């Protein structure tokens, strides 16, 4: 039996509800102006959008163990993790709407959210966040702190060199890193068995001498427990772990994906196995009543609505700002120190 405190379950529940509501609201906003004919350039949200409805248990269960000084890297489907990690929701939303006050001043968009205050980053290339997470773990080790790094990736990413090499590097250097595979059964249109022979992605760990665990119960508490063990191990300087979590994709790969390749039954089954409902049940079993739950939901929804409202009010970036931030501001790298005649060192050979 899990030792999780009820207060933690409540926090997780609130994060999960916020994440789900966030995705539902973004879907609405995103599709505005894009119907009936879907034109990606219409509506208030630019670009592609990968929503994580159905993944909430993973973000919440893992991040519940993390502090601000712990690093998280997430892939192209990042919102639920960002919310659980405590990323500034208003500025994140402004970023997604492409506004000047967004986390990245509108330069990054939803696949490139960076919040250094809580050491969160995400990126759009498969498994690309794994090596930087290893690097954050390396920095923690070198600085002799007990902070840890967590890299999230999809089950479709476990065939990519960047992930596999990272397992080895983290293992041989004994770094405080946890890799979390979110298995939602699909990599865009490719089912898992088409791209790997391994049913349990955590099995990859075996070839690299680190522990691997899989949680497939759609149970945020089980995720919390397994993640607690892995993160605790990392914090105690006992090395890296690999964790796979079964989640579900409720909204297509990206907005506009008609999922023609996916059976109705599969979609239906994914919708049924809802870890938010399940966690609500657990909370009720812990004597958290319907009213208390509704209060949590209400708070989560309000936070989301507030962030979206704020974001939509923000100004668009000045076109000229496109030329800024290629390099650090203020500009670095132009220091000149003695000897003053330095610059002509090779002059007359």
């Amino acid at each position, binding site marked *: 039996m899990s030792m999780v405190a009820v207060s933690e379950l409540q926090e997780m529940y609130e994060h999960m509800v916020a994440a789900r509501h966030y995705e539902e609201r973004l879907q609405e906003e995103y599709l505005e102006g894009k119907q009936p004919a879907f034109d990606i350039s219409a509506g208030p949200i630019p670009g592609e959008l990968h929503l994580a409805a159905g993944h909430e248990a993973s973000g919440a269960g893992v991040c519940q163990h993390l502090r601000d000084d712990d690093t998280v890297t997430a892939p192209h489907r990042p919102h639920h993790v960002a919310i659980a990690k405590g990323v500034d929701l208003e500025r994140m939303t402004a970023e997604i709407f492409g506004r000047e006050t967004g986390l*990245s001043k*509108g330069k990054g968009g939803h696949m490139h959210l960076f919040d250094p205050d809580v050491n969160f980053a995400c990126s759009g290339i498969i498994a690309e966040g794994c090596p930087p997470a290893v690097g954050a773990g390396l920095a923690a080790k070198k600085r002799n702190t007990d902070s840890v790094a967590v890299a999230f990736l999809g089950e479709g990413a476990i065939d990519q060199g960047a992930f596999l090499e990272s397992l080895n590097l983290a293992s041989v250097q004994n770094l405080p890193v946890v890799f979390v595979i979110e298995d939602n059964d699909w990599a865009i249109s490719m089912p898992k068995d088409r791209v790997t022979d391994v049913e349990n992605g955590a099995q990859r760990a075996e070839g690299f001498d680190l522990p691997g665990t899989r949680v497939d119960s759609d149970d945020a508490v089980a995720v919390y427990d397994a993640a607690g063990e892995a993160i605790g191990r990392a914090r105690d300087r006992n090395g890296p772990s690999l964790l796979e979590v079964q989640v579900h994709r409720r909204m297509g790969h990206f907005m506009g994906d008609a999922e023609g390749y996916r059976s109705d039954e599969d979609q239906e089954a994914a919708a049924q196995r809802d870890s938010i409902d399940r966690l609500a049940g657990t909370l009720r079993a812990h004597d958290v009543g319907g009213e208390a739950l509704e209060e949590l939901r209400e708070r989560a929804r309000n936070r989301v609505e507030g962030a979206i409202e704020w974001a939509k009010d923000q100004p668009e970036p000045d076109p000229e700002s*496109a030329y800024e931030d290629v390099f650090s501001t203020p500009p670095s790298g132009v220091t000149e120190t003695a000897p003053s005649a330095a610059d002509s060192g090779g002059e007359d050979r």
Partner: protein
Amino acid sequence: MTEGETDGGTDRSLTMSRAMVEAIAHEMRESNDVFYMGEDIADYGGIFDSTEGLLDEFGHDRVMDVPISETAYIGAAVGAAQAGMRPIAELMFVDFFGVGMDQIYNQMAKNTYMSGGAVSVPMVLTAAVGGTYNDAAQHSQTLYGTFAHLPGMKVVVPSTAYDAKGLMHNAIRDDDPVVYLFHKRLMGIGWLPAPDGPKTNVPEDEYTIPFGRADIKRDGADVTVVTLGLHVHRALEAAESLADDGIDVEIVDLRTLVPLDTETIRDSVSKTGRLVVVDEDYRSYGVTSEVIASVAEDGLADLDAVERVALPDVPIPYARPLEDEVIPDTDDITTAVHSVLSDE
């Protein structure tokens, strides 16, 4: 255009995607050695419709979804090509080249040379390129210059359905590795509406367009605009409005970057004396640089003024006003044309 003169007598108009797929399907029918590998290219039909319909005709054995392991499957295409097959491997976005580049440039592109011609690598590497839909720095690049700089690969960039089909036939039949870069905005995808130009009449018969032959997409006497891909259409649009001002622009569509048709470029510049190079890749050390340098080298005397219009040296930003700022548009081209006219 009188139909029948320039398009093999057809009035069947196709999107660039349909034209490209038609060539692939034809070659797959002709030879069992041709097959297609990539992510989401089977049931999905390619994220940018590059394989739409192929699965139905050819099945999963020849229209193969593969793991998200670009190094492994692009390298496998090299191995299969060296074994005599004619694989087509798709890199979903050209921006992902960095995860598989070693196989691309150290094996695919070099093995013919490193073996003294003992082996050849008859494969096609396809990739979607380009921005204009706010997909930000990791999903919007063209990287034309990156591929064209490294020897051993032919680099193809179609701008119309007609060209896309003929160039694809040639790419598959070519005994050498061909990098075939199709611009997402030109494919005619429902959710990413194309401008008017790329949908053209396309003959049902097979035909090839040789590499290394640029195409004059518009004749003109005053200014030479050299460009490729999406920007052929932006340049044509600019030319139309400039024509109203009595400025007669010639538009050279490079069609292939390797080989580069320097002759057509120089002939045009020797006629107009003024050169504008328009590119959606980064400005420095790229396509605009090479086109200008190639003219300066052998035709400096002919050259009265030159301008380049390209992506500035910044990663491609997400928000609409920002992306609009950096990707060259029709106005940028018009301005550059005016500038070379006033420069002298």
